[in-house]
């Protein structure tokens, strides 16, 4: 079963409204509008759909935190489509291929929390997706799926496309809210959570593209059906997994939640390219800990990956091979994270550039004996709870696990005063 991607055309062009409707599109919305908002939320909660942006929090539960006591209160619904995690390209597939599925999911979610305004916060570089969404929004509005009194239900929603300017930070939901308000994309303190005080101080739900795209299917087919799609009833549904790196067929696939890393790499990605050996992988994008050979049979669901010492994150695997320098690999990531730090809190703003500079020095043969201690110190001191948001702890996950699994490589750089893989950085 590939409910999310099964209908996406082979050429990747977006399904038109007519095509989408022909496949049963917007029936879930009609069904939801006949349910009470509370029933919609409960159904989603029972499906065990967990946030596909990386945090893995129960989506229905998140919605249930929105105060519903004042029906006249303004509320907002936001789709986080600022997909910028290195190695992650799953949302793009859905955004480009089936924008109406996303809009329908958002409509149902908006109905569940009785939001009156919706925004798709889209990564600026996703130009094709932006075009598709604009068309879809216009189509949906013409067809009466958006606007006032949708399908005669009395429920109204206006929806807007907002394209960011390319800050990874905007993927953090509270920074996204600040950015959407025209402020600096720095994260906000929690509490208050966005469900209580979000966009413009109003109750707000922010969910990922893939998360919203699951919603119509849950409403159409029920929570039990959605759970049954998964190999693990704790984490409902299918998941879009991706693999990049020196594999034969890098790409993304919609698969039952909980298939193993080995299946993913060997079956779907066609195994390692000839001449390359698997050394490790970031299972859920750039901000997750390395898994190594011994973890290949770990099921790719939230609980199992966590038990193996990493995170499912976005479910897009970045593979490290035996001919790529792990120090250079991690340097590349830390360079990205240091660049994308918003500059709000000290450890992230000052610590990430320091790790990046040390890794660069190692790669250029200028490493010193205590550099690994300094890197370890950072991995520790930029950990969860010490920085303002999750960016720096995420950035430390590949570093700390690389120091653990590939320590010899790091030491070799120092002792040989060069990169054994022959890399240099400028």
């Amino acid at each position, binding site marked *: 079963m590939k409910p999310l991607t099964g209908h996406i055309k082979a050429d990747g062009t977006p399904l038109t409204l007519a095509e989408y409707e022909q496949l049963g599109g917007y029936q879930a919305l009609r069904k939801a509008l006949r349910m009470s908002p509370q029933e919609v939320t409960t159904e989603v909660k029972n499906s065990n759909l967990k946030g596909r942006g990386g945090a893995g929090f129960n989506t229905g539960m998140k919605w249930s935190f929105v105060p519903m006591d004042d029906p006249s209160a303004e509320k907002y619904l936001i789709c986080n489509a600022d997909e910028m995690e290195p190695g992650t390209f799953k949302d793009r597939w859905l955004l480009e291929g089936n924008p109406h599925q996303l809009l329908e999911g958002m409509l149902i979610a908006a109905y569940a929390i009785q939001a009156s305004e919706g925004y798709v916060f889209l990564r600026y570089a996703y130009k094709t997706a932006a075009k598709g969404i604009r068309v879809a929004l216009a189509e949906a509005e013409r067809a009466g799926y958006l606007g006032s009194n949708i399908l005669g239900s009395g429920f109204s929603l206006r929806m807007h496309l907002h394209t960011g300017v390319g800050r990874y930070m905007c993927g953090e939901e509270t920074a996204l809210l600040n950015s959407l308000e025209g402020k600096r994309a720095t994260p906000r303190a929690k*509490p208050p959570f966005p469900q209580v005080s979000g966009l413009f*101080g109003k109750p707000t739900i922010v969910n990922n593209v893939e998360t919203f795209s699951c919603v119509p299917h849950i409403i159409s087919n029920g929570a039990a059906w959605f759970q049954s799609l998964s190999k693990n009833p704790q984490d409902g549904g299918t998941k879009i997994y991706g693999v990049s790196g020196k594999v034969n067929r890098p790409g993304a696939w919609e698969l039952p939640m909980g298939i193993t890393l080995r299946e993913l790499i060997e079956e779907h990605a066609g195994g390692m390219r000839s001449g390359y050996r698997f050394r490790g992988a970031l299972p859920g994008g750039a901000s997750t800990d390395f898994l190594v050979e011994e973890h290949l049979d770990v099921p790719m669901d939230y609980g199992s990956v966590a038990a193996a010492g990493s995170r499912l994150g976005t479910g897009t695997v970045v593979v490290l091979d035996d001919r790529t320098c792990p120090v250079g690999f991690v340097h590349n990531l830390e360079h990205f994270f240091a660049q*994308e730090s918003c500059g709000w809190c*000290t*450890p992230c*703003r000052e610590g990430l550039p320091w790790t990046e500079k040390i890794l660069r020095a190692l790669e250029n043969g200028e490493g010193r004996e205590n550099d690994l201690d300094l890197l370890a110190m950072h991995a520790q001191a930029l950990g969860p709870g010490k920085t303002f948001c999750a960016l720096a702890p995420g950035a430390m996950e590949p570093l700390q696990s690389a120091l653990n699994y590939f320590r010899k490589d790091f030491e070799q750089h120092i002792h040989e005063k060069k990169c054994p893989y022959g890399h240099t950085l400028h």
Partner: protein
Amino acid sequence: MATLFIDNAPYQVKEGKNLLEACLSLGFDLPYFCWHPAMGSVGACRQCAVKSFRDEEDTRGKLVMSCMEPVRDQARISIQDAEAVGFRAGIIEWLMTNHPHDCAVCDEGGSCHLQDMTVMTGHNYRRFRFNKRTYRNQDLGPFLNHEMNRCIHCYRCVRFYKDYAGGKDLDAMGAHNHVYFGRSEDGVLENEFSGNLAEVCPTGVFTDKSLKQHYTRKWDMTHAPSLCQGCAMGCNIIASERYGELRQISSRFNGEVNGYFICDRGRFGYEFVNSEDRIREIGVKGKPEIKDRDSLLRTAAARIREGSVLGIGSPRASLESNFALRKLVGEDNFYHGVADTEFDLVNLTLRILKEGTVRTPTLPEIESADAILILGEDLINTAPRMVLALRQAVRRGPGEALSARMNVPLWQDAAIRQAIQQDKAPLFSITPYPVRQDELATKSLYESPDDISRIGFAIAHAIDPDVTEIKRLSDEERMWTAHMAAVLLRAERPLIISGYGAGSEAVIKSAADVAWALKKSGKDVRLSLTVPECNSMGLAMMGGHRLESALDAVAHGHADTVIILENDLYRRAEKTLVDEFLQKSRHVILLDQVYHQTAEEADVIIPAGTFAEADGTLISGEGRAQRFYQVFVPDGPVQESWRWLQQLAEACGNRTLSHLRILDDFVLEIAKTCPQFEGIEHIAPPSDFRIGAQKIARQPHRYSGRTAKEAHIQVSERKPPSDEDSPLSFTMEGYHGIPPSAVVPFFWAPGWNSIQSINKYQIEVGGPLHDGDPGRRLIEPGDAHTPVFFAEQAAPFPIRPDCLYLIPQYAIFGTEEFSVHSPGIASRSPAAAITVARADADSWGLRDGDLLEFQFNGQEYKLAIQTNQQYPRGMGTLPIGLKGVPFMDLPGWIRLKPVERS
């Protein structure tokens, strides 16, 4: 109260605070940067980390930011925990990776929070071996120096400037480790409170540019507790000197008056003290040989004895000096040296405050008002500090409501601001022209003073029908008055503000009626009425005659000698009148600090000490008596006016002041003989006050160069001056602990060298100083009293052909007499032009910059105009007190000369 365990010891602390506040209030040295007691928490710098434990069993604990965690009963935290200690040192290590380590050439050195926190955390060994980041600095205008390389990115500057003070031209820009705090381009920082950045910034990014002109380290300056003389707010300041030159003004915390902050006029307007224009020598016309005190006193006394004498006091002179003059010349011959309109306005104000039912607010009371009505007052220019307080007030109500609803404490500054968005408590501002406080207003109206008073009385009537109904209101006025009355009646703590700004007694009376009506209906209302100068209130309380009658007395030959106390009469009455007055007076004796037009006409000039060279008492607009202390003893004959006048009386054989020698004598005499000033003897400790037999040292314990600094003149050290007027010593000898709050010469505590050491002087951080905030309120309304409403029935403002109703306009930078001697202040002075409604100018065929010719009180004037679309028709404003603007006793009707059309 909650029990908080810190490193396993129990402490009783207030609930509702955060852990950082609790720890600091208990006296622990916990380092921090982004938190500020007046600005709350945002959790950015991560410097204040402590270990938090679930319970007694929990031995691992987790790091938390103490500024972000509320105090909870039975909570267990550790400051000493090794991981917490290490993490805090690590934060400094990170901050130091890019800091230039240029302390030796940095103005902040020695009073730098970053230095203090660095030492406190123990970080000292540098492990970062890569290049530092660098920035380009900006020219931010005359007040602040900008050195971005020193920045540690605590975000305090933008949080103060933008969030707290409403500034619009400073922001954080860029991202990651290259965030830039500055303007979008070089240029003058516009906000009137910009100078506070020098204190808010924990390091040397924003430093005082005026100090830089004559830079001295904090430890090398002599400091004294002082009062700002820039307006009547009574802000507490620290004045600092070296080599006989006043070098810096900084804010002196007083929770009741100015809190942590002062305005830029107050901070940068001090340079007249060092000015070339200072009166430093004795001057007797025709007798240049008289240079010493004794000969002067003999000469002056001889002239005083020649005939009848008349004294003109001053709203910018201390209570003691005015009192001494009044004693010397006799009550009947004592006149107020203020314009007659101002005299009437201030006396009315005093009467309203004394005889009315509503009290004036303290700073915290302004900040907690939940509905505000401003009638006629352009506050940023007449009482600047109040605007900063109002800015906090309008956020308070919505903030408290959201705090309760979201269960997020008020000190969570970013969260509360975010939730509030643009919401604000009701503030209605009705002024003659657009003003700064419009930004804070839920509704602004621009009306002539007559119409403002009509609206005021109409609001009062809507609250209480005992106030006569106002006739002929327009529909719009009727709607707004009903709305404003309803909002004020819904509030719990309404605040009514008015004052001298509109130049209208009716406006002040209408404000009083609104306040009294609210009081009658049971509201906990406050009434704030501005007065013009630092001791306008004190002078009015003392009593005396109008200036007009002094001019009459001389004109009719009733006075031979005129003694003018710290006053330039050309700023108080029209030139022809003053010319005549000075010519007709046989002898004019002037005591003042800076040369001005009156000084040019005076026969005897006596050099008076400025606030930096004198002690004295001032009464603020709030009615608060406060003391300021001499910072240094000037060379030459300069001394306090009250001392001069006492000596003059003695020389004249006038024994009324014989028993008064030192400041305490004057203070006690005033308290004893003038019941309205009873209590001023208690506002500060007397001169014989000692702590362990010691006086309080004005110089810090590290004051250097004392034996060498005059070695080029005389090798041996001069005997240091003694201070018989105060419990302060002029040297580093003396008590260096925490003195009584009225005599704190500087804030400094072990490990806390910067101004942040104020924490150590407070009962709890952010709260009052140890033995209460200084000053004593002298004016309190009687409780039993029911007011007699003014309930005046003014007619609507008439628009008269060929005439314009001209009202005074004030400028924070430019109006005040002395502060314009600071080049920075002068450079920000507005244009000397009359502003009128654009439609009026169009009807005369005039455009911006054209000259307007007119007659006022029989005199002809010619001034440039500028136009404004939002001005009411038939009315104009004149920025009085500015250079190039002649004195006119406004408001009044001016007659326009017909415009010759080419």
